[in-house]
């Protein structure tokens, strides 16, 4: 049931310039995110959730002012209907009719409106129907008990119904969410599989030609072309899948203690091919540089920054990677000696599909957005600036938790 909507909007991205999330939940436009999610997933705000049919949840409730008018309307209707019936029906029976209306009302409106209906109906019933009529006065203990009991029963019935409904709504919301997440994951996994199988076959077969040996220089070059195209295609598929995972809120970072040196080395190894022709300098502060992060996500984020630097700077210009603890944060920097970033672009370089004017071909404008998504989902921050040597400077800041507890040991 969620399929159509989810698929149609799968690749719709939200950027920071879009209208605030809260606005989209009440407007005529279908909501793109459930209200309670906008904060809990703070980091993925810049990608929207895939559309689910969460309007099913909304259909339960009219906006609050209308609910209050509905409550007043129902009470007045029962009163007008009951007034001429007084001759045949005694006022105790009428209380039961009020109760029935109260419970039915509680099924469709919120707690506040139910409470209003309970108070209003108790007042009207007491005033017009409990003898003496047209006064709040109560004659005997019998009627007094009736009025008090009515009030309590109406309030309790309203409250219980409201609770039951809240519970049902939560259930439905959870179910819809998990359905949509499951669908998203399944889709992503199968897309991932479908793309990677042929890429594996292409890259594997090309490489195997070389292993078999006896190739002319031209054949060697052609195989190298196939391999590098395969690698590039694989990077693009990886980017699209990563973006979809961020967008779909499918990222669950596995935070664990990581040594920054390891992350840097893994990224450099992964980017070795792209870095050919760029001298790389790493500066890592002495001593353990540990932070709680998801190794794989951080490696991808850093690889994307490195690839970005390698692609957008002239050949032979150095790329500098540094890491140190600054105050309560671990600061990871990638600096290049390229043309730098125009001042007005600094704010926008991390936006999805955002590309600098006159930037070189290569890449689809997802790399930096993925950096932002991956870092923020781990509780970190990203920023861009221009370095003191000219060239762009990208910062990743991760909260450095208190240094880990280590067993004491001597030589």
């Amino acid at each position, binding site marked *: 049931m969620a399929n159509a909507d989810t698929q149609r909007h799968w690749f719709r991205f939200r950027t920071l310039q879009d209208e605030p999330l809260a606005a989209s939940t009440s407007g005529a436009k279908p909501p793109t995110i459930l209200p309670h999610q906008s904060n809990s997933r703070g980091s993925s705000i810049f990608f929207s959730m895939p559309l689910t049919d969460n309007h099913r949840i909304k259909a339960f409730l009219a906006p609050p002012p209308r609910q209050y008018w509905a409550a007043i309307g129902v009470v007045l209707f029962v009163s007008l209907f009951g007034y001429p019936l007084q001759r045949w029906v005694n006022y105790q029976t009428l209380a039961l009719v009020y109760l029935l209306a109260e419970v039915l009302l509680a099924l469709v409106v919120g707690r506040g409106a139910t409470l209003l209906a309970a108070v209003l109906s108790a007042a009207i019933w007491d005033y017009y129907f409990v003898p003496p009529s047209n006064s709040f006065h109560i004659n005997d203990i019998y009627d007094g008990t009736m009025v008090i009991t009515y009030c309590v029963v109406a309030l309790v019935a309203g409250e219980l119904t409201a609770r039951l409904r809240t519970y049902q709504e939560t259930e439905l919301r959870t179910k819809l969410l998990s359905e949509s997440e499951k669908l998203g994951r399944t889709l992503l996994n199968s897309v991932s599989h479908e793309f*990677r199988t042929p890429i594996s076959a292409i890259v594997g077969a090309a490489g195997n030609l070389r292993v078999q040996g006896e190739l002319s220089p031209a054949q060697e070059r052609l195989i190298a072309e196939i391999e590098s195209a395969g690698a590039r295609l694989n990077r693009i598929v990886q980017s699209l899948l990563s973006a979809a995972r961020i967008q779909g809120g499918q990222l669950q970072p596995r935070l664990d203690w990581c040594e920054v040196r390891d992350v840097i080395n893994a990224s450099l190894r992964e980017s070795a091919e792209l870095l050919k022709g760029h001298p790389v300098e790493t500066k890592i502060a002495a001593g353990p540089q540990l932070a709680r992060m998801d190794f*794989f996500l951080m490696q991808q984020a850093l690889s994307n920054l490195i690839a970005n630097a390698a692609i957008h700077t002239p050949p032979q210009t150095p790329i500098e990677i540094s890491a140190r603890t600054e105050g309560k944060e671990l600061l990871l920097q990638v600096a290049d000696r390229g043309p730098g970033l125009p001042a007005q672009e600094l704010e926008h370089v991390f936006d999805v599909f955002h590309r600098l004017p006159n930037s070189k071909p290569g890449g689809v404008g997802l790399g930096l957005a993925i950096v932002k998504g991956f870092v923020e989902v781990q509780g970190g921050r990203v920023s861009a600036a221009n370095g003191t040597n000219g060239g762009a400077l990208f910062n990743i800041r991760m909260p450095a938790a208190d240094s880990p507890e280590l067993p004491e040991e001597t030589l």
Partner: protein
Amino acid sequence: MNNVMNNVVSTPDMSALVIDDEPQIQRLLSTVLEANHYRVTTASSGHEGLSTIAKQRHDLIILDLGLPDITGLAVLKQIREWTQAPVVILTVQDSEPDKIEALDAGADDYVTKPFSSGELLARLRAAVRRSDRGKAEEPSLHFGNITVNLAARLVTRDNQAVKLTSTEYALLRLFVQHAGKVLTHRQVLREVWGPEHEQKTQYLRVYVQRLRDKLEPNPDAPVFFLTESGIGYRFSAS
């Protein structure tokens, strides 16, 4: 004389079983492996793979983790109930938890799609070599300018003794005894610090860095104590 030499040099063909549901990958692997003197059998599902293994002994098993009928992990666990033949798993990126689970469940190594033939063949050879070597331990091992004498519990660098704490030594011994193999964080922590500490990756990060500081030519760019992204470590003696 010639005959004897030939017998020593040429190894008999090894049998390899490929369990993967994608015909394209099956064909590719068969071609690559046959060109490198493996006898190849293929299976397209977990159940087919298991029944093939039950019927016939294999020197090597290549297992895709994403199979249509039962998960690769389930297949692996069943394989491990009756054979210690080396199993190399094929996975895709973004599936680190699956890789870790498979390695913990007894897989020997993993290759991430898309892989190069050279990389795959090297992993396969290493896995077979390790399983052939079996439990026979060598008393000492050399890598770079380092010698580890397991019998004497002595580590030297350029013939100078290196002082290691008992934990550092235990970690080093585990690494050299499993040279070339990926060890998951859990496996290392369990082995060196005990099962109650298997979540404490921070121990591992600090101690591996200490080993690197003492034994690597350049501790910031290690060549022996290699990190496997988010999975564990691989000690490389070459």
